[in-house]
């Protein structure tokens, strides 16, 4: 198994407190990996460190062999790693198509300067990009809304648009931050299907942070469990389900979760 993403000994302190302590794991090409843990376990911090929003205090993160810890998010995207967000998933006032065009920014074969002078090549490049984005919307069932402002879409559609924006960057590794948070069971199931579908047809590797156990257990090949900023378990869904430390960690916070 060739590792696409290697997280090695990553710690992150806020003030004097460790939000992450010496966390290591890897994601292999073609895998769907779940990152789970109770509230405050450090999942989001971990996610932010990998995607470049936060710099780790110590440790390294490698993507396709490149050291990416501390790089800007935009540079990391350029390498082929894209993410979604939990809360602010879309550009609300722009149209759905424009949202995806923005997501495709790094993959649009047009230099900004060329587009400023509106050269023929720039127009052609933008047209090609637009076509690709339109296909992507088609694929995710969002095509009928392409000219609507994203903020006016139903919530479930907005979450899906968030995935579309990330996909528009043509990532090899797609990181999803609680993709089904706030969705109803039906929408959640649909999102689960979509992820699996994307994984199969687009050959995209997925790292998933999620609360929703059924989704994680259902689609992930492998699961990493964090608690209090430390990795407490890693393994196949079946192993995790019966892991004592995991059960304890979750029981301890059951009522909150």
């Amino acid at each position, binding site marked *: 198994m060739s590792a696409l993403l290697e997280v090695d000994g990553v710690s992150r302190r806020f003030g004097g407190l460790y939000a992450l302590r010496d966390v290591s794991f890897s994601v292999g090409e073609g895998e769907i990996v779940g990152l789970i843990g109770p509230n405050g376990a450090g999942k989001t911090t971990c996610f932010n460190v990998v995607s470049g929003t936060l710099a780790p205090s110590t440790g390294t993160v490698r993507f396709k062999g490149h050291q990416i810890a501390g790089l800007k998010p935009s540079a990391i995207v350029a390498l082929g790693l894209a993410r979604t967000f939990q809360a602010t998933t879309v550009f609300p006032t722009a149209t759905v198509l424009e949202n995806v065009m*923005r997501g495709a920014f790094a993959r649009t074969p047009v230099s900004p300067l060329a587009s400023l002078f509106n050269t023929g090549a720039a127009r052609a490049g933008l047209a090609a990009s637009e076509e690709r984005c339109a296909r992507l919307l088609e694929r995710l069932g969002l095509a009928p809304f392409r000219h609507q402002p994203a903020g006016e879409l139903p919530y479930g559609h907005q979450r899906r648009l968030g995935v579309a924006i990330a996909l528009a960057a043509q990532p090899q590794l797609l990181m999803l931050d609680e993709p089904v948070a706030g969705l109803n069971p039906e929408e959640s199931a649909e999102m689960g299907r979509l992820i699996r579908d994307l994984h199969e047809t687009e050959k995209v590797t997925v790292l998933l942070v999620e609360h929703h156990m059924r989704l994680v257990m259902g689609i992930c090949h492998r699961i990493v469990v964090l608690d209090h900023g430390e990795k407490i378990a890693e393994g196949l869904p079946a192993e995790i389900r019966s892991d004592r430390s995991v059960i304890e960690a979750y029981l301890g916070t059951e009522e909150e979760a």
Partner: protein
Amino acid sequence: MHDPRLPTTGSGRLPGSAAGRTWAVRLGALAALLAAAALPHFVSNQFYMHMANLALLNAIFTMSLGLIAAVGQLSLGHAAFAATGAYISALGALHLKLPPLLGIAASGLATALVAAILGKILLRLRGVYFVLVTFLAGQVVTLVALNWESVTRGANGLVGIPPISVLGYSLGARAQFYYFALAAFVGVFILLRALMRSQYGRAFRSIAENIELAESSGIDASRYQVIAFAIGSGIAGAAGAVMAHYIRYVSPDTFTFHESVAYITMLVVGGRQTLTGAVLGAAFLTPLPELLRGFVSMQHIIYGAVLVSVLIFLPGGLASIGHRIAKMTRGGRPRP
């Protein structure tokens, strides 16, 4: 007011979305431009020409501020860049006999460079810190202009700045300067419109709307914020130089914090979303103080009240009135 009829195209929001109305808009813009060009022939009152000139210059200041605002940054030091440009060109003309046109270009480049360096250094300082830093930058410029007496002549300011001349033809008079200001205005308008419709504009809007998501879409927010800040400030610097050659005088008082606030007010009142908004704001608010020239306190109160009311009741500014009306008359027909 006899302000130039300005092309009202170019919301620049979505490339291609304007395709349907292109011809009507182009014709309208052309007509407006012709009307603006003919203005001096109909207006003999020199005071109105003076106001038209000020309105054009203010429109340039406001549009360039709007560019910075388009990336989600509020600059409280816009006038400081105008002052920097004004001093550079004025000093160049007075000491080096630099032709004003060259001086203006040099001012624009120099202030853009300063802004780029400042922006690069203060990369981390987004949002509120950016506001405070631009504010302090304004203070620094005023302090330097005041205290670097040997160069800036201190509070006395620089007197006897030559007027702009093009091919040996002096543009000292108001009507002649008007054509220069109009040309500069149209140039800046076209440049900014192209910018906002290009991939730059796409990046700017993404950053303004959701900076985290923009970053994660591969848009280097810091880079584009610096670009917008440098271009916006560079234009302000050049326009400041133009102003210096027009009023032929510059002192630390010419461009202060109050001017920065005035530009913000024009931008907000006209509408932050579009270039047209900035132009409307300048066209509307430049003559407004004249209503109460003898009673400035009242004038300021109205200015402030207009600013706050527009923010609350008409967040899109004057420019959005048209959209609102259009929306109502179209009766909810889906957008093209």
